């Protein structure tokens, strides 16, 4: 019996070894919101998350940047993809496949910013230490809502992490003025707390907040405030370490942009093809098919009409930087009239957008995907033009002349650049564009913005805020008559599946 005891004991022991688990999950390597925010660096982590959404393919990596290009009069379409045709031709449906991508992505940026702001409340650190970090989140939130309100008008406005899902999925839209008031409040907070400069232009600074305030006021028609904000940036250019870059080409050279003083707020692309499409695919969309550069050439989708090139003074260095009128295709160097030797279905015999394909940086992959461009969302030249436009509106012609001519002067300097066939040369200093004299008009500034900021996602918003669609999309426009355009097109439709999920978002924007 003794051995029996022994074995019996062993067997019973096996029960007790196992014991009982409470079955609670304690994930490692996964983060839960509870108790995450402990220090200012945790706030920074959520801010970085917010801004990372902006570099995603669904936002500035392609979907929003290309949508903004296609809707403008500066870029036409070489593709038959429905979602792009709808964008370019103003036949956009509420089911549009680009909207359905940048709508959620924009709100993901907002959700991360809200998380940072709410999390900051849990961080037991002096305001002087944590508010400059939290202020970046306020800036990011304003940045995203500013896009939303200009794209869609009234949208649901959320400014804290969602706790009651049911309530949040049945909320109503906020009015445009309410959203703008919130954007301004967020930017004012950011301006108050952000440092004058940051080590990277991709981190929001006081200058970035101030410049965006200027643009927001300009968009709202608050010209005095816009002028005040813009001139404040200009007058503090030294403090903010800002200046126009001598060579306009440098702004679109991923290898040297980090050293430039011109960008005020930029999106910083990772130097690799990050997971989840968080890398640049805007560049290849603008490239020439069969182009010998960039391992396989571009995809030839967003292509300006010939008029964009022919109406642009050939003496303007900015045209030489902005457009490729020569390329090497299959080993043959041709000018734009023969770009279709690639034989591709959508190849166009037009000059192509050059800003992103010439100097995509060391890490760009085939077709110039994953460039290292730090796309400028706001640069010093724009602040000068905001100041000039506001000055025109408030009747300060002298200031308007000063600011707009600073931009034109830089363009005249020319600089080292290369053609689309990779032939390096120096564009000699030019007399074009000459300084403006006499009375500057709003149209003068808009025209300057169209050329200076060509293909940078600014033009569509200018068309909307100045309501010049019927003019620029008329028969004499750069793209010829766009018959489907009407004033309802100034706003995009809200995504139809969102309206189905939450009928309280109705009514849909007019015309859809």
């Amino acid at each position, binding site marked *: 019996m003794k051995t029996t005891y022994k074995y019996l004991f062993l067997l019973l022991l096996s029960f007790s070894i196992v014991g009982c688990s409470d079955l609670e999950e304690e994930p490692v390597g996964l983060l839960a919101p509870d108790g995450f925010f402990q220090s200012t660096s945790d706030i920074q982590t959520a801010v970085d998350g917010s801004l990372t959404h902006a570099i995603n393919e669904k936002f500035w990596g392609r979907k929003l940047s290309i949508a903004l290009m296609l809707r403008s009069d500066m870029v036409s379409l070489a593709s038959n993809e429905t979602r792009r045709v709808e964008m370019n031709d103003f036949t956009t449906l509420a089911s549009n496949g680009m909207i359905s991508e940048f709508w959620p992505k924009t709100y993901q940026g907002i959700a991360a910013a809200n998380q940072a702001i709410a999390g900051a409340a849990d961080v037991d650190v002096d305001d002087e230490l944590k508010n400059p970090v939290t202020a970046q989140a306020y800036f990011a939130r304003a940045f995203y809502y500013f896009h939303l309100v200009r794209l869609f008008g009234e949208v649901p406005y959320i400014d804290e992490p969602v706790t009651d899902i049911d309530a949040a999925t049945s909320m109503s839209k906020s009015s445009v003025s309410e959203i703008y008031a919130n954007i301004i409040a967020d930017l004012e907070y950011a301006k108050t707390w952000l440092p004058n400069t940051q080590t990277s232009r991709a981190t929001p600074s006081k200058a970035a907040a101030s410049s965006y305030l200027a643009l927001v006021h300009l968009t709202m028609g608050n010209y005095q405030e816009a002028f005040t904000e813009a001139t404040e940036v200009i007058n503090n250019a030294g403090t903010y370490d800002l200046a126009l870059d001598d060579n306009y080409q440098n702004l679109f050279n991923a290898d040297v942009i980090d050293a430039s003083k011109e960008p005020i707020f930029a999106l910083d692309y*990772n130097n690799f093809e990050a997971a989840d499409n968080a890398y640049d695919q805007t560049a290849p969309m603008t490239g020439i098919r069969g182009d010998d550069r960039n391992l*396989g050439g571009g995809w030839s989708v967003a292509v300006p009409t010939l008029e964009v090139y022919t109406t642009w003074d050939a003496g303007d260095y900015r045209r030489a930087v902005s457009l490729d009128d020569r390329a090497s295709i299959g080993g043959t160097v041709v000018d734009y009239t023969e770009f279709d030797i690639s034989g591709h279905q959508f190849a166009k015999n037009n000059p192509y957008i050059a800003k992103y394909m010439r100097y995509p940086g060391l*890490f760009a992959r085939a077709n110039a995907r994953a460039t290292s461009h730090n796309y400028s969302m706001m640069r010093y030249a724009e602040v000068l033009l905001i100041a000039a436009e506001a000055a025109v509106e408030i009747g300060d012609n002298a200031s308007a002349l000063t600011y707009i001519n600073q931009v034109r002067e830089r363009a005249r300097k020319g600089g080292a650049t290369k053609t689309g066939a990779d032939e390096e040369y120096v564009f000699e200093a030019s007399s074009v564009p000459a300084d403006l004299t006499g009375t500057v008009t709003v149209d003068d500034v808009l025209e300057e913005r169209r050329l200076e900021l060509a293909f940078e996602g600014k033009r569509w918003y200018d068309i909307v805020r100045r309501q010049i669609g019927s003019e620029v999309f008329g028969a004499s426009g750069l793209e010829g008559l766009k018959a489907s355009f009407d004033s309802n097109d100034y706003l995009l439709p809200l995504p139809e599946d969102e309206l189905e999920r939450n009928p309280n978002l109705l009514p849909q924007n007019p015309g859809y």
Partner: protein
Amino acid sequence: MNLKIKLVFIAMLLLSLTNYAQDSVTIKGTVTSQTDGEPILGANIIIKGTTNGTSTDFDGNYEIKVTSGAVLQFSYLGFVTKTVTYTDQKTINVELVEDTGVLEEIVVVGYGSAKKSDITGSVSSVKSEELTAFPVLDASQALQGRAAGVVVQSNNGGEPGAPVSIKIRGNTSINASSSPLIVVDGFVGATMPQANDIQSMEILKDASATAIYGSRGSNGVVLVTTKKGKSGRLSIEVNSTYAVQNISNRLDLLGADEFADYQNQIRANNGVTAAYSQGTADTDWQDLIYRSGNTQNHQVSFSGGTDKINFYASGNYFKQDGIIINSGFERATFLSNIDAQMTDKLKLGMNLFGSRGIKNGSATQSNGSVSAGGDDVITLALRYAPDQPVYNEDGSYNFGNTVGDPVDNPYAVAKERIDETKTDNFRANFYGNYDILENLTFKTTFGFSTENSTRGIYLPALLTQTAGGDSGRAEVETDRETTLLNENYLTYKKEIGKGNLTLLAGFSYQKTVSENFYAEATGFISDSFSYYGLGSATNILQPDSSISEVEIQSQFGRLNYDWDDKYLLTATVRRDGASNFAANEKYAIFPSAAFGWKISNEKFLEESESISNLKLRLSYGVTGNPSIGAYESLARFETLYASSNGESVSAITPEQPENPNLKWESSYQTNLGIDLGLYNNRVTVSLDYYNIDTKDLILTDNSITEYLGYTADDILANVGQINNRGFEFSVSTRNISTDNFSWNTDFNIAFNKNEVVSLVNDADLYFDAAPSYFSNDRSYVLRVGEEVGLFYGYDYAGVYQGGTLPDGTATLAGGVAGDPLFRDLDGSGDITTDDRGVIGNPNPDYTFGLTNSFTYKDFDLSIFLQGSQGGEIFNMTNVQLTNGDANTTVDYYNNAWTSTNTDTDAPRVGNNSNREISSRFVEDGSYVRLKNIAIGYNLPGETLEKIGIDRVRFSISAQNLLTFTNYSGLDPEVNYVGRGGDNNTSANTAQGFDFGSYPTVKSVSFSLNVKF
């Protein structure tokens, strides 16, 4: 009670029983097996009409006290019970006869075993001979066609080392796995052992059989029992197989001249005046990437035992050179089982299993994600222009494809791309079995298993498209999964009146930890690093690592009662608590009940000459599919790789809200079965009807608005329901059975019908299987009231002959004569995406298997046919082959519409339909396949005895020798995982797609089996 008191109590209980003695005589005896004369260990001896009994020891000896006239009943599992009346003998030696009748087969069930005749659930058994009829890498492959309602398919045709998927009774889920639970020697969720090491495989199909596995039972359970040693017999067995393999079919494509003509016709049709400039070569790309493959399988096993210890040990080596160049698989496996009778009451044992496999992969089944989908050698061989040479004059690979998107040279991809997966498996399972009381047994098991795999991929710089233009691209991924399992259960058997009661109660704890590491880099100085020099790369991509842990703790119980060998009752229940279940739904209970009636044991049939067995079975129960991944119900942040201040940093963003009410998926299954045996069971028939309602299916809850800003694509909710119902029929006949000749036939057939019962708001769910570069957005649909995974696209209506459009049809924009016509479903006069609808159904009406086995003296012959009827295939390959930017089939080239060849169903070359998914490419995928034909010869026994050899057997077999099908593609057994990749949703819904899969092979095998 503390432990000590418990022990004392149990000990006293034991003593009281042993002291219970009678005034009587002690007799002795030995129980042996009639077959081999070996003693039988553990045979039961009971004095009829009493509870007195004993069992034999290791030498088959027993002692029992009897009184005059007592009737002794000798029984042992697998042997016919014998009774002997005590008439003053001193010793009673008994020879038991092995019970060979089909109905007395012993069937392994969850946590026990039972006589097949006592089974109330739906259980199919597959025998060892069927599993080893031809060489298979994975024993699961051998199940195909062998058991009704079990569909087995390789995930990638004939690829060496490709995983095999098993589906029992259809798809029971959409987003969760539909694969059954594999239990090997009691180890839940184990790796399948080598086919030669398997004694038997049982497939538990209905809820009555699977509910004991609770939340993991709803896809069915495959119980595998490995071979054990027998005491007293030492034997060595050697199996050796060599097989030669070839592609079973090849597409008939154009040569260089025809191809140039084809391209010129396309240009002419598209108004392009420049002629196609034909290359100088004439390359058959298929010929280059395919070769003759071979498989070797060698196994040595030792088994035997002494009176107290039995063992079985085997080592196996498997090597396959695939039929695509550079693809192959190599594996070494060992398995050992030891059982030791420590005392009369205590038995201990251990199972060990280990293997290492190395897979050399070929790029197949492109999902289109690599630039232009150029990473798949099979479709590349169809896309690359045949007038281009393999090498340029300077000896470098030619990369000058002249048509379509830029793609890499298929031969270069096959030759230069490195893709190795090394997988190590180890499993150890210890058990202890203790007879606490005569009728009460306690069993405990401790098991540990681990699977570690490393996959390395290297794309050398010369593969411009697949390597993405980088100078070399390498990735390494490692996975480690470790499982701990402890199970403890008591089994109690008792005869009550005319009935037998068996009770089982137990507790189980299982913990699985999965770890993953992934790294990728581009830009290498030299290709010679392969994937081993990540650190030397100029561009390190975002690495990743993760861990997840799942614990399951369960209580289970079963009651079996059979009364008078006529009425059978089985009831089971399992309560599972799992860590991956959401906070409010931590515990789940899965009950089942079954009733069986052995009608043939009733008086009115007992005397029947023709009906030797008739049994009715009825069962109902609930089983689950755990469906929820670890941490899936928790509120979570997602980590992002961000750039801040010019530095790479990690960042966070809200990923998903907490979902405390997320539940497992539940299947409610009814099974009605009938087993019939005729003419002394020379004919046995089984028929089962089942109905499975799977509820609470987890689907993406698209009611959560996107403006909440969560990044998770799939915030989940329990919203769907599907139904599977069908019949399974199997019949076995011993047609002829004489001394020299026998002929047996086994046939099984299964009809399954599935139906989507409800979805989120009952709205259609669309999915897309087409590779991404086809730029489609949907290719199949889930629709309420229809079967799962119907093909979705345009309805092809023939070729437009010009002039007035036939009623109800239209062409795509700009259609002219020769272009395809489609049904204008919305009547708008043109063809838009609104004109798409259901165009086909991949679900077969029925699948079947038929085996005829013959033996004549020392020869045997087995012919195994297997087939599937009524399922359709979407021939994605033909979409690629007829859109002009690839080579094409001779058939299309000859039959395409031209102004002089108008009576055809094939549109003109270069027509205006480019890559549309339409019914033009839906084909009947029915087939009947001669899966295996084998001839064997056993050397005559007398000859062998002289030289001391038990058995020498030669056999020659051929697999997939003949296939009868109307399908025009390479092979009707298609399984393209789709652009979504190899995941549960694809496996459940993207069925019947043919694109770039590794082709199924034809092989001829030679085997030798020697047993000493």
